[in-house]
């Protein structure tokens, strides 16, 4: 059965994901979560016993894509079967939203406009004449407050009606006379060429003037002469380049419509969040607050993580006692079971305690809109190391996991900036490595060491960024929207945390338990001797660590958090604090492990996104950096202690 497809399209922060979530809740349905920026979420929804595919496309400001994730949306709309476009607009930013709506209507697909965040528009003193707007656009308009689940029923009814019954065509937006003439000419020329295309002839004609690269090459070639002539005309007669002419007109069209439908109730006072924002963006207080914020952020994770770890530890110890008698019964079975147990306790006792607060706090943090402010504050500093302020967002996500962080570089428009960010991201300690750092420093030293290592890693990133940006050409610079500050929703953050933890444990559990079992066998068959021998030059000569840790590095390539479990396993102890290592050795080990290689998944993702050359470069660079840094700490600490 071929279900019809509904896609959600909207500008960033318009509430698309919220609409998506509440819509797919109408009757319990499965959501395919892939969790990170740029990945398309889809689900099935039922309305009046009909089922439809619902797809949430990546946010885009317009149909002239500026970056990779916007490109995905535009490609999808132009080339995949779509039966209905649900265009989500932030009502308090109506005019800008309408520019995208006009483009979507030009595209020629059926459109429903969702005026989301209606409450926010109201609190800003803006009221919208829905009837008039509907007349202007000739598409259904549904006001919603998706965050509170309001208007969702009306929306799904409207979708149903629009999909299953006849509806009148949407308005056509006429450009000024001279452009309109050119559009008509192109439309005529395109008449025989657009067989079987998703998009309308009008859309193709407009884009051939405004942004020709969007249209397939063979069509573009056939109309090249005409569109070149049009651009020449526009430039000579009106002194305007083609792109500006069309986008300017659309901008004014949107403005005209919103002037007709908007009413401002009163001259609004500055709201509290705007006053707070002044301080957050202030050149002095802003940075001050930022520092405090991040120190607090990591401190909280440390405290909560420690607490949780203490809580589960006794339980795990009880479990170990239960397992002990097996050893007398069958050695091989015991090594297998004990391996599995160590993997399991590694997740429950070491990783999850730190992962949980990290993911939750990051979810809260993302919700507030403070991320954009961080990017703003850091842009000046980041520029000094040759980076884009926007990459801050990727770096912050990198503290969670490098994989979504690498994906999130898609919102950086420029290839150079993207590549630099992607090469640097693996240096940012992800939650797995933070777990390693915290757990080992907690067992051997004080949190001060964790801070020192963090500071050092930041320094490494800065130096690498500086060098890389010297090697590559110049960036275009930051253009970033600073969304309104929001009180984060606890429910949404819990939901997000739950999904991420689920996502994480799903493969981590299998991986860690199996991995530890394999390591148990390695121990049983005494293979680790050879692995350790292979790593001896680096592990013992360069870094001055016990040989046995060599095999942990292999597993660390798959998942960094495995290193902890494996370290216990390899050295034959049952808790970290019993590891026979000196402070110096622990710190050297941590530094090396933090930097030595992106994990396997990150490796694959970087390869997919950027190609072999970049990923190889990144791998070799990180190995060199790791060795040098570990040496620095090894001898640095020695000298300090003398």
């Amino acid at each position, binding site marked *: 059965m071929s279900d019809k497809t509904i896609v959600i399209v909207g500008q960033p922060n318009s509430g698309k994901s919220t609409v998506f979530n509440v819509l797919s809740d109408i009757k319990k349905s499965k959501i395919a979560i892939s969790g990170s920026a740029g990945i398309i979420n889809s689900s099935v929804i039922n309305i009046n016993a009909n089922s439809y595919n619902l797809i949430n496309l990546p946010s885009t*400001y*317009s149909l*002239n894509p*500026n970056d990779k994730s916007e490109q995905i949306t535009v490609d999808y709309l132009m080339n995949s079967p779509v039966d209905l476009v649900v265009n989500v607009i932030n009502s*308090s*930013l*109506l*005019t*800008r939203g309408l*520019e995208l709506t006009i483009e979507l209507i030009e595209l020629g697909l059926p459109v429903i406009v969702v005026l989301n965040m209606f409450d926010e528009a109201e609190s*800003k003193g*803006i009221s919208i004449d829905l009837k008039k707007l509907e007349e202007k656009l000739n598409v259904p308009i549904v006001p919603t407050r998706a965050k509170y689940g309001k208007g969702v029923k009306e929306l799904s009814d409207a979708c149903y009606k629009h999909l299953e019954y006849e509806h009148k065509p949407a308005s056509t937006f006429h450009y*000024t*006379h*001279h452009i309109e003439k050119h559009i008509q000419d192109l439309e005529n020329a395109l008449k025989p060429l657009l067989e079987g295309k998703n998009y309308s002839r009008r859309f193709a004609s407009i884009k051939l003037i405004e942004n020709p690269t969007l249209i397939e090459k063979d069509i573009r070639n056939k109309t090249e002469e005409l569109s070149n002539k049009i651009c020449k005309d526009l430039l000579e007669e*009106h002194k305007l380049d083609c*792109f*500006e002419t069309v*986008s*300017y*007109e659309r*901008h*004014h069209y*949107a*403005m005209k419509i*919103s002037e007709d439908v908007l009413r401002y109730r009163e001259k609004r006072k500055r709201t509290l969040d705007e006053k707070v*924002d002044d301080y957050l*963006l202030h*050149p002095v207080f802003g940075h001050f607050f930022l520092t405090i914020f991040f120190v607090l952020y990591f401190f909280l994770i440390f405290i909560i993580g420690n607490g949780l770890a203490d809580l589960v530890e006794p339980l795990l110890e009880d479990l170990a006692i239960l397992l002990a008698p097996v050893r007398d019964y069958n050695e091989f079975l015991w090594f297998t079971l004990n391996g599995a147990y160590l993997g399991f306790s590694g997740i429950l006792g070491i990783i999850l305690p730190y992962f949980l607060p990290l993911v939750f706090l990051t979810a809260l943090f993302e919700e507030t809109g403070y991320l*954009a402010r961080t*990017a*703003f*504050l850091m*842009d*000046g500093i980041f*520029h000094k190391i040759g980076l884009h*302020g926007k990459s801050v967002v990727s770096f912050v996500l990198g503290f969670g996991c490098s994989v979504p962080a690498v994906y999130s570089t898609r919102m950086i*428009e*420029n290839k150079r900036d993207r590549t630099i960010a992607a090469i640097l991201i693996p240096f940012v300690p992800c939650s797995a490595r933070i777990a390693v750092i915290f757990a080992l420093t907690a067992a051997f030293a004080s949190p001060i060491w964790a801070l020192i290592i963090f500071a050092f890693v930041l320094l490494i990133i800065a130096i690498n960024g500086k060098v890389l940006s010297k090697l590559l050409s110049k960036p*275009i*610079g*930051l*253009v*970033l*929207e*600073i*969304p*309104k500050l929001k009180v984060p929703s606890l429910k949404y953050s819990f939901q997000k945390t739950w999904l991420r933890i689920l996502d994480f444990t799903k493969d981590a559990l299998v991986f860690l338990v199996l991995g530890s079992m394999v390591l148990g066998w390695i121990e049983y068959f005494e293979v680790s001797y050879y692995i350790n021998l292979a790593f001896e030059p680096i592990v013992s000569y360069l870094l001055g660590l016990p040989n046995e840790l060599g095999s942990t590095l292999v597993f660390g390539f798959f998942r960094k958090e495995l290193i902890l479990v494996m370290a216990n396993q390899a050295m034959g102890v049952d808790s970290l604090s019993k590891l026979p290592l000196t402070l110096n050795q622990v710190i050297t080990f941590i530094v090396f492990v933090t930097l030595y290689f992106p994990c396997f998944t990150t490796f694959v993702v970087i390869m997919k996104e950027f190609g072999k050359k970049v990923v190889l470069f990144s791998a070799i660079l990180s190995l060199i950096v790791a060795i040098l840094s570990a040496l620095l700490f090894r001898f640095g600490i020695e000298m300090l202690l003398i």
Partner: protein
Amino acid sequence: MGRKLRIPLFIYYKNKLIKMSLSEAPVEVRLTIKEINSGQEAKRKLSSLGIHKDDVVIKHNDSKWGPVILENLTVQSNKLAIGRELAKKIVVENER
């Protein structure tokens, strides 16, 4: 003929109009965007975030370093941060 120019709401009465780059423009006054002399890529980005020629904007921060914070009065918008280098390429006009 052709493009419909929107006259910004403030009155030009007896005032001189001064052109300058956005990065050196004064804060908290109404500025009209006159030219965007950046590359094509940045132009597109600005346009999709709602910044066009003839828009009336207000600059909100006075630091000499880091991005400029901009608010567009012509359309309702959130604040925008625009990198210093790019801000130098945007020409604005104000009344004095």
